[in-house]
């Protein structure tokens, strides 16, 4: 992996923050975009901006083709069997809501159980809360072991009422990889559907929905070098077929009559009402081809190395508490005696972007015993030198108010 060349692909890496070269360690929130993605979007906007699915003239047909090619890019990237299993959505949150309301709400009955865990993101928690309230189903939390979802944890709360397990493949705070393949195998033996939140896994790992036998998978474009406002819901075709749309309108129906008779199209179109995010899909396709160009295997390896390097450096300091030494994703930590938000400010003053807070996983305090943490999250374009600079800032912890007077 030619890191210099790669860094040159990202215009953002040439920007400054508070007078310092930007060190971007908030990739869990959103990633930077390679020029190829920005260019693909610009090209759509300036060279062939038209609507899709309306092929009455060449321009529109060109847009259609670009849009559907992006769908094929997604299919290939996650190794789905059929391109019809790829639904474009507004983002992972939208995708998860579509499963909860389109599948959960229509399949769950009073007393049924949905297994979550307290490390899940709000977007994989709150839609299920609402569906549970509406159907009378029950939310059950699988216990974590050292912060990680385990097959044993899942088994320990599974009953014959369990209908759905919804789980992040990689947690956005704890950074652990859930053993989804094993969980799914177990779940299917008990006729349980497994919804996977891939928001933090698809950008960083090799995804193979067939090998893992995933039922539903949700993820966002903007966390994998793509634009915001676009995401994906993958579902096995027969499950999508059983899933109700959550939005109705132009494009998704085959025909309807004034007597309320409505004939919907087949998946994925029945879920894509209204003009879709066309440049979003095109941008996501470009992002996927960019990632494939580098190679997901190399990306995984590089990120593992970066993380190990950062953990080693942080452990050498005596003013840092690390909450997830052994994860693969984000590092959750605190500077001792410095409130997370003050810490983030100190990093900011030194040009380092890290995030502070509950990271939208607001049940996790019940497990961690601390409400707010700092989170540093890497992507393949980060470097050891950036991590060195980040660690230097950690050392300044006691002077955290300097940031405020800098």
């Amino acid at each position, binding site marked *: 992996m030619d890191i210099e060349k790669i860094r040159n692909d990202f215009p953002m890496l040439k920007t400054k923050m508070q007078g310092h070269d930007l060190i971007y360690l908030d990739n869990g929130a959103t990633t930077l975009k390679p020029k190829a993605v920005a260019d693909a979007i610009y090209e759509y906007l300036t060279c062939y901006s038209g609507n899709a699915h309306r092929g009455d003239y060449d321009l*529109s*047909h060109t847009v259609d083709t670009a849009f559907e090619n992006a769908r094929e890019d997604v299919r290939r990237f996650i190794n789905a069997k059929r391109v019809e299993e790829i639904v474009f959505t507004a983002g992972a949150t939208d995708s998860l809501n579509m499963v909860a309301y389109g599948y959960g709400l229509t399949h769950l009955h009073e007393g049924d159980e949905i297994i979550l865990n307290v490390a899940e993101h709000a977007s994989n928690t709150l839609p299920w809360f609402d569906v549970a309230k509406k159907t009378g189903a029950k939310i059950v939390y699988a216990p974590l072991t050292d912060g990680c979802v385990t097959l044993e944890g899942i088994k320990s709360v599974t009953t014959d009422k369990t209908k759905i397990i919804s789980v992040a493949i990689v947690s956005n705070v704890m950074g652990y990889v859930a053993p989804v393949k094993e969980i799914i195998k177990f779940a299917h033996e008990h006729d349980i559907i497994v919804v996977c939140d891939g928001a933090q896994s698809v950008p960083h790992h090799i995804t193979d929905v067939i090998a893992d036998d995933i039922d539903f998978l949700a993820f966002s474009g903007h966390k994998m070098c793509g634009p915001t406002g676009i995401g994906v819901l993958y579902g096995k075709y027969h499950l999508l077929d059983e899933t109700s749309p959550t939005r109705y309108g132009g494009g998704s129906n085959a025909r309807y009559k004034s007597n309320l008779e409505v004939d919907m199209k*087949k998946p994925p179109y029945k879920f894509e009402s209204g003009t879709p995010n066309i440049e979003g899909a095109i941008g996501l396709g470009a992002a996927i081809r960019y990632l494939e160009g580098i190679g997901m295997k190399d990306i995984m390896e590089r990120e593992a190395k970066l993380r190990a390097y950062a953990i080693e450096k942080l452990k050498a300091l005596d003013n840092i508490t690390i909450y997830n030494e052994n994860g693969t994703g984000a590092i959750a930590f605190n500077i001792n005696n410095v409130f997370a938000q003050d810490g983030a400010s100190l990093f900011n003053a030194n040009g380092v972007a890290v995030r502070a807070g509950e990271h939208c996983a607001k049940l996790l305090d019940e497990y961690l015993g601390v409400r707010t943490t700092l989170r540093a999250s890497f992507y393949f374009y980060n470097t050891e030198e950036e991590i060195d600079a980040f660690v230097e800032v950690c050392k300044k912890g006691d002077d955290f108010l300097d940031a405020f007077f800098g």
Partner: protein
Amino acid sequence: MRSLDNPLILREIIMDHYQNPRNHGIVDEEGYKKVNMNSETCIDNIDVEVKMNNDIIEDIRFDGEACAISTASTSIMTELVKGKSVEEAKAIHQQYMNMIFEKDYDEDLLEEAIAFKNTHKQANRIKCATIGWNALEELISSKEGE
């Protein structure tokens, strides 16, 4: 004989089938299996039905409100496959698709369907030129699956 390269003649074939579609009009009789192809283009609304006799397409008919390209291509399709075996129909279908998508194809199997060989130049009409053929495929492959 292969004056089928003459655009005027190709045009006439299409106009002829558009204005006088063959095997037109759906019969609601026992033994027919029907598909509606409304959702494919959002504008052409075509029904196609077949009656099988074992492996043979004994009858095939269509109806609906559709453009010249859809109507003519479906009309020609019905003429080509009527009386043929599923195997033969599939072969013709394959050649037609090859032609539409600019691959090598066997002109002889396609007869008048050759009028659609320029479809790729108006790529937005591919759906129209294939709608009836897609219906055929659906009908004869689901027939097998039964």
